[in-house]
């Protein structure tokens, strides 16, 4: 995939990964910094969106500041042959932010479906977990909910400018 991203794409990513400029013509402002035209920046951004390199352009709410203060990593043991079908259903629930199939680590870790559940308080998270259990029905062979007790680090992946 990286072969499809050239040096101009990379420059646009570096210039926008901290955010878009809050000016009436934000893509023109990015283009001016990079010596490109606004049209070229927009064409490349649309292409990166189409490739899925950009998930979306928009606002990332701070869920903690907005009152969603509880989150639990719910992990489930579901039959391997059912996981793709049920994973998509669990991922579609409004309170689930991340949903993945990951490997079991037997014997100590029997869980293969991971779903991060958010709520305003722990009771809402518990209600979400109960809703997942109900959705899974007979495909649910066991689960655990891991609440975070300390946050030691939270940054994102950042591309480094060429040195």
């Amino acid at each position, binding site marked *: 995939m990286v072969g499809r991203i050239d040096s101009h794409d990379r420059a646009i990513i570096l210039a926008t990964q901290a955010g878009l400029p809050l000016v*009436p013509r934000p893509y023109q402002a990015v283009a001016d910094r990079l010596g490109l035209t*606004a049209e070229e920046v927009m064409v490349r951004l649309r292409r990166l969106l189409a490739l*899925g390199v950009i998930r979306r352009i928009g606002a990332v709410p701070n869920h903690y*500041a907005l009152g969603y203060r509880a989150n639990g990593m719910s992990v489930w043991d579901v039959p391997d042959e059912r996981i793709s079908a049920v994973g998509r259903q669990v991922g579609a629930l409004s309170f689930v932010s*991340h949903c993945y199939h990951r490997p079991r680590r037997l014997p100590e870790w029997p869980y293969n479906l991971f779903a991060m559940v958010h709520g305003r308080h722990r009771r809402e998270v518990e209600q979400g977990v109960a809703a997942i259990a109900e959705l899974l029905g007979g495909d649910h062979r066991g689960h655990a909910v891991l609440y975070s007790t300390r946050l030691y680090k939270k940054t994102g*992946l950042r591309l480094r400018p060429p040195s």
Partner: protein
Amino acid sequence: MDALDRAILNTLQDGFPVCERPFRLVAAGLGISETTLIERLEALLAAGMLSRFGPLYHAERLGGAVLLAAMRVPTADLERVAALVNEFPEVAHNYARDHELNLWFVIATEHPARVPAVVTEIESVTGLKVYPFPKREEYFVGLRFEV
């Protein structure tokens, strides 16, 4: 936050247009001016209601790699081991969680070859086993908060 802030947040979680005057287009849909929208966004960012505003990149599709991993750390050692893990610039997130596997962290790097190397180095500096939980399939990433 008033009703307009909430309307702005709900609208902009869905996406932002790529066109010459995107703020003017979004503002028109909300029945406000381009200037008002930009000022509200500046205030929401300054107040920390928004973490960021702009493109969200997909690390793996940029050629990078991401790995969730966990460790079983003796409780008395948790702070010390968490600090050792934090020292790796490739560690993007690091949380204590209430389980036998009690330290959960995410390795995110532009250089996929660094992932197994970081796992080995963390095992070496901590003397503890790292349990990798690579993604087999992704069903959903994102969250839409109605505010």
